[in-house]
């Protein structure tokens, strides 16, 4: 199961790179520096880049292993952070807060 998932992941990566390379055979001028690409990652993931900028970004990513790996790790960091969303309020905390409110509401302000 693990190796199957890993293989599928590699296959998807390869497909993405192939698609980007076929769509944008040459990196456009102005997107040659990795530093610039890192600055645009958030806009890329938020889908707020201009179409030409997005194409240039994808063309660079398809050709640059460092930026490709950086993008993957940036995405992984986001995904991990979103897992913290599952936290619920513990029942004992909720009970204490309800008692606190009950006591305060009974007091004349």
């Amino acid at each position, binding site marked *: 199961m693990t190796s199957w998932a890993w293989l599928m992941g590699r296959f998807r990566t390869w497909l993405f790179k192939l698609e980007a390379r076929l769509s944008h055979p040459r990196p456009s001028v102005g997107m040659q520096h990795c530093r610039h690409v890192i600055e645009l990652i958030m806009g890329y993931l938020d889908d707020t880049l201009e179409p030409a900028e997005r194409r240039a970004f994808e063309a660079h990513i398809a050709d640059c292993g460092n930026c490709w*790996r950086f993008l993957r790790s940036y995405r992984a960091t*986001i995904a991990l952070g979103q897992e*913290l969303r599952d936290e*619920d309020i513990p029942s004992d905390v909720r009970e204490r807060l309800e008692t606190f409110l009950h006591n305060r509401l009974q007091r004349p302000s």
Partner: protein
Amino acid sequence: MPAELVEALKRNEASAFERLLAQHGAMLYRVALRLMGQREEAEDVLQEALLKVHQNIQAFDGRAALTTWLYRIVVNTALMRLRAQTRAPEELFDTAGPLFTEDGDYAQEVAEWAMPPEQLLLRQEALGMLQQGIERLPDLYRAVYVLAEIESLPYRDIAAILDLPVGTVKTRLHRARLFLRAVLADYFAAGKGPSA
């Protein structure tokens, strides 16, 4: 439904506060916990925030959504408390992003990450490291990160809650992510991570 709850809160009905906790308690607790880092402190923040809700609900005019108003109270209460403590300086970010050469290329090769989604124990360990990283963020960056990443609020709402321009919200979120990525990098870098 929110309007009905607001009216009940304005009438000072005890059951309205119970409903408030039932409907919004989890999100408010999450925010308080991630901002403060400790359960006890999060509970204190929530207690103080609920008191403020009770004291100020008459002034709530519905121009903002109730949830936005609640978030703002909890975040401001937490930030007020954090201001009294010594927290991380913004220089923390100087080494957070990747290092580049003068030509704008990476100074070091970026390592491939090995992410083990199915290995719960390792994932819990990684989440623990992430939480430690979040606690090291400067307060205002942490507030942006918690509201954006954990609560998934739109940038516009976060800007309203924290009274910041949307552009500043985005910049702070990006820098917080870069820092947290750097915190996790050693852990996840292939060959350096935990042995399964």
